[in-house]
């Protein structure tokens, strides 16, 4: 039997806008994935720790406060530091278009802006999950 994809949906920083994170979490769950939602106010350290503990295949980061820099790249850096290279890191939120290539250059695998169809995220994860 195929193993379930495990996704950690996380809210880094102080941003309280959790509508998007919760909607995406629900959609991934409805698509048959196992979803863990961290809740609010997570530091990059806490997110990486939880991802490792929970054996997540994917980390989905959500930020609408504009703090995607430096928080998203920090998650990627900490994963590397812990020797983890097989967790897919994706993000979304209010992110200016010109920041997307910079986030990708910093190691974020994909960024989904407002208005992204939910099944686009589901399909992306299915195609790109690393293990």
């Amino acid at each position, binding site marked *: 039997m195929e193993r379930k994809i495990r996704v950690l949906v996380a809210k880094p920083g*102080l941003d309280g806008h959790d*509508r998007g994170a*919760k909607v995406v979490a*629900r959609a991934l769950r409805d698509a048959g994935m196992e979803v863990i*939602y961290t809740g*609010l106010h997570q530091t990059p350290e806490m997110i990486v720790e939880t991802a490792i503990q929970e054996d997540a295949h994917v980390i989905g980061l959500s930020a609408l406060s504009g*703090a995607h820099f430096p928080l998203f790249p920090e998650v990627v850096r900490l994963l590397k530091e812990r020797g983890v290279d097989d967790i897919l890191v994706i993000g979304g939120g*209010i992110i200016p278009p010109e920041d997307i290539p910079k986030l990708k250059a910093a190691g974020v695998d994909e960024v989904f802006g407002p208005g992204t*169809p939910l*099944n686009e995220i589901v399909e992306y994860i299915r195609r790109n999950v690393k293990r």
Partner: protein
Amino acid sequence: MYDRKELESIRERERRWNQERVKEWLKKRPERAESFRTLSGIEVKRLYTPLDIEDLDYSEDIGFPGEYPFTRGIHATMYRGRLWTFRQFSGFGTAEETNERFKYLLAHGETGLSVAFDYPTLYGYDTDHPMAKGEFGKCGVAVSSLEDMEILFKDIPVDKITTSMTINGPAAIIWAMYIAAAEKRGIPKESLGGTIQNDILKEYIAQKSYIFPPEPSMRLIVDTIEYGMKYVPKWNTISISGYHIREAGATAVQELAFTLADGFEYVKAAISRGLDIDKFAPRLSFFFNAHNNFFEEIAKFRAARRLWARGMKELGAKKERSLWMRFHTQTAGCSLTAQQPEINVIRVTLQALAAVLGGTQSLHTNSLDEALALPSEKAVRIALRTQQIIAYESGVTDTVDPLGGSYYVEWLTERMEEEAQRYFDRIEELGGVIPAIEKGFFQREIAESAYRYQQEVERGERVIVGVNRYVMDEEIDIPILRVDEEGERRQIERLRRLKERRDSSKVRESLSRLKRAAEGDENLMPYILDCVKSYATLGETTDVLREVFGVYKEPIIF
């Protein structure tokens, strides 16, 4: 509202119209959908006639503007007398940068200020706190001490212009800073007008910038209500907010019901402190969202006024002013699209028009670029101009409540009221607002609505132009506001110098007096004022309260 005989003849005409005219017409031209629904899911009929409002009593239910139950507006002449306040929510970076933005907006015809604070400030952290990392100035302006507040309002006539501040967890402290900054300029607090949001219940429900648990939070709120009533009589010490509830995914009905339920909760809390309802109620204000479904939004505002007036009367209010629901409106941020951002101007126009036809006292219009970043100067100017066009060019301000008497709008107003009442009953069954929060009731209701809405969009049942229809492959080419990264360093440096300069024994004493008072049950406002005047920082002052009150942890629901 109508003569019985006349109603019977309309009923007969309607029956014939349905059986003959409509039936025949539908054979040739079927309708675009099987049913039409508002954003709250209320089914909208093909046509409304006097039959749909036959049970309404004009004098009892609709009445006259400025008179109970205020369905048509709280003032007798509404915008023929005075327009709403043009109040754009703004703030970013350092106090200096936001002070510049304020002056820019005032120079372009804004008539009231509204401060957005950054996340660390909303949580009572100074800019140099580890949790503040990456958040400085991004979602608003950083205010860590009285010094920042002085800079923020430098050269702005705070005795003449009103200021609204979106601050909740540490509202008492930020308000104390505003009062202290004004007093230092020789402006007495009695002459200060404005609003602190100070609505913690909706923080637990939706916006999530809470600090302390519900009980001490409610105490702080009643402290500010009591202090304001006695010493800052022109200040609105709370802005009971549906805006964030709606943004989190609630429907219009849920926004209406949850906000008013919160409002009544604050009133009961103040009454149980022994405060006289007619002394504090006139300083309670509200804040609503204006979303896409035009008539539903208008009906929501009209229903809100009526529900509040009736509810306050039941709670024992005697003075007319205590029954007024005065509210600010902001257009729906969550309705803006990152795709084809220019067309957001049209969305905002329609939403703002709904707010005006709904009788708002104050309005913020969103900027076209807000699905991408904080607004640029040009974008915010267009948003302000949108209000000015509605106010001065459209003519909708020439008569009071122009939609009053519309069969549809009156019917929908009544429906909204009934639906809200159903929610009040459910909240009551759960033991009231705070137990319902602790049980995750609101959070679950909102998450459900948000998900349902998203699925409707995905299936194409809800059309969002540019997102699921009329999609374009385009390069987005609009200027984006960037927050100066250097600001954070300057802010931390300012904080460091302040801590060196200030009289640290005064700071220590004022903080320990606050701690003792917090452990007891005195009103904390005078103690908080002493702290901020000694230049204790926001973080230091909040930490004292965190120590005494503890912090809130929310149940995780999705």
